[in-house]
């Protein structure tokens, strides 16, 4: 794999002010992403996993300049261009939009019900002015639709007539039609049953190799991530808590949260019922996170220092970083 870095985020933070809460006093703030450093190698299939609400979607969107960045920098360099996303100008941003795409988490919300599938897929081309004639647009749409195994008859229909999995292929076709370099796939196979999921994942992998794409693949399905990603980062409450080459992460998880995730994967054996390791303790609020390590309220190994100081992400092995005060002690 080439070692060129496509996305390089430093001290990246995204904060949201919330409605609700108290009428007087400051509005609560959610630190959806806080102080994240992230390198995504060009051509990699980079997995991002973590608790619901931990900031995965927000981080993915920030990498596309589609979330309000409060602090930090993101560099995008694909060998042809180099942009710093927080200071990027309009013209560059327009170009960046053709080079990066998002495949949505919710295929129901993502597709406009009043457009035919053909028009949905063609829209990015038309909005960005990437084609010069209707024939050319049609040609591009047909080409990408075939890649995503949608047929001509599908193109004339409206999205409501499709089931979740079929819609997800439409979203994928739409994301690919501008021939981007970088794709953020947010829970793109969560709605799919396993045999189609295998098919779509094989498809994404194929497309990635063929077109040399880089994927940021957001998922909470660890077995899927294990099979398709070459590197995995784990988030908890806005922070990166562990990052490692896939094999390493699954064979030697070092953060207690990663360990808990791996042990909670539902087993296919009905006799394993009730044997899944469960986490005790309070799930912290993103508006009022605990001091110290954000995982301390649920961590079976938390001690005083964990409740006081926030651990930094440190090198623990080749390509393997972990943010835990006790990772060395907990090696066994």
């Amino acid at each position, binding site marked *: 794999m080439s070692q060129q870095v496509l996305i390089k985020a430093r001290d990246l933070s995204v904060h949201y002010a919330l409605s609700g*809460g108290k009428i007087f006093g400051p509005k609560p703030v959610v630190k959806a992403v806080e102080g994240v450093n992230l390198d995504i190698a060009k051509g990699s299939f980079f997995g991002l996993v973590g608790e619901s609400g931990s900031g995965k979607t927000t981080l993915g969107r920030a990498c596309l300049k589609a979330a309000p960045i409060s602090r930090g920098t993101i560099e995008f360099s694909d060998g042809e261009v180099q942009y710093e996303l927080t200071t990027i100008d309009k013209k560059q941003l327009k170009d960046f939009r053709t080079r990066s795409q998002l495949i949505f988490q919710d295929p129901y919300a993502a597709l406009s019900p009043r457009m035919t599938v053909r028009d949905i897929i063609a829209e990015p081309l038309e909005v960005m002015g990437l084609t010069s004639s209707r024939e050319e647009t049609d040609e591009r749409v047909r080409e990408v639709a075939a890649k995503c195994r949608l047929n001509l008859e599908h193109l004339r229909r409206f999205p409501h007539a499709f089931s979740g999995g079929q819609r997800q292929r439409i979203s994928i076709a739409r994301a690919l039609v501008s021939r981007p370099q970088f794709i953020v796939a947010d829970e793109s196979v969560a709605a799919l049953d396993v045999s189609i999921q295998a098919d779509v994942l094989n498809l994404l992998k194929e497309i990635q190799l063929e077109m040399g794409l880089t994927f940021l693949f957001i998922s909470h399905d660890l077995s899927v991530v294990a099979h398709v990603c070459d590197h995995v980062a784990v988030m908890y409450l806005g922070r990166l808590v562990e990052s490692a080459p896939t094999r390493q992460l699954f064979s030697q998880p070092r953060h207690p949260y990663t360990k808990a995730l791996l042990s909670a994967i539902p087993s*296919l054996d009905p006799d394993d019922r009730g044997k899944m390791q469960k986490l005790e303790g309070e799930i912290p609020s993103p508006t009022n996170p605990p001091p110290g390590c954000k995982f301390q309220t649920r961590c079976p190994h938390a001690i005083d220092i964990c409740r006081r100081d926030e651990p930094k992400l440190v090198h623990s092995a080749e390509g393997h970083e972990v943010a835990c005060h006790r990772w060395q002690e907990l090696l066994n």
Partner: protein
Amino acid sequence: MTRLLDVENLTLQFDTDEGRITAVDNVSFTLEAGEIMGLVGESGSGKSVTAKSVMKLNPSNAHYGPETKIILHLDSGPVDIMSLQQSKDLQVVRGGAISMIFQEPMASFAPAITIGDQMVEQLMIHTDMGKKRSKELSIEMLDRVGISDPSTRFGQYAFELSGGMRQRAMIAMALSTKPKLLIADEPTTALDVTIQAQVIDLMKDLVTEFGMGIIFITHDLGVIAQTADKVAVMYLGRLVEQGLVRDVIRTPAHPYTKGLLAALPSLDDLDAPLVAIPGDIPSPLERPGGCVFNTRCSDNLGARCGAEVPTESLLSSQHNVACHLYSEEAIK
């Protein structure tokens, strides 16, 4: 055991621009009070529309077959769902005796009303609780599904929540009315496995506490193995196999069920390729004659599978399969 639901010969067709399609074809199953039935199958196989039929929730282009019979057994006596015409009559089942967790979380929350107001409104319609009690219960339910700081979240709008929180809020709303029957359509796809385990525990608690019955639609066979009592497998509108979870997962009979199990990414061998079931699910406009799976079946027996619809063969008292491989002639 007490019978909660009888679905007999459910057939459902939709009028579409291209003609009438069959989405559900002669499906029958039963559910006891306190029982969890998993419903699995390929995307587009008709799981969601089957579930919605139990509440007569399909849009106006839907046509139910004349043989279709759906009976819900309540304490007050059996309710013949198909005979309910007015939305006033249907109120009894929608959101009252039956709750549904929809596959599309965004669609189930009105964008301009806070999560809390919607929960309270629903409780006030379907129970005799007052406003104050409704609010308390709503917040308590948000807490039980693992939403931290529930009183703040209560005052927020759906778009302010992460995908998984939205899903949990929907689960809280669906469970708060203590329905007799819960239809959960992919309820945990957006959750990390540690939270998923917690939500599933909550559902199981309610099953024991109130004898609630659940139809649990998911493509995660691990979740089924850990949660459901029995499982039904759908393909292109037909139920191809039904049985106790242990039997179906340990000794799957239908070639489609076998294919689904083989497509699961295994954590034991990360290098193993993902095996999709070959071929594409046919369009509902071109449903294959005979066995609906024959165009993709690796055990296809030839002419018979393409011509004759297989009837159910009983493999054991509670395990049956609709496949010619198991018909009497084939066994002989």
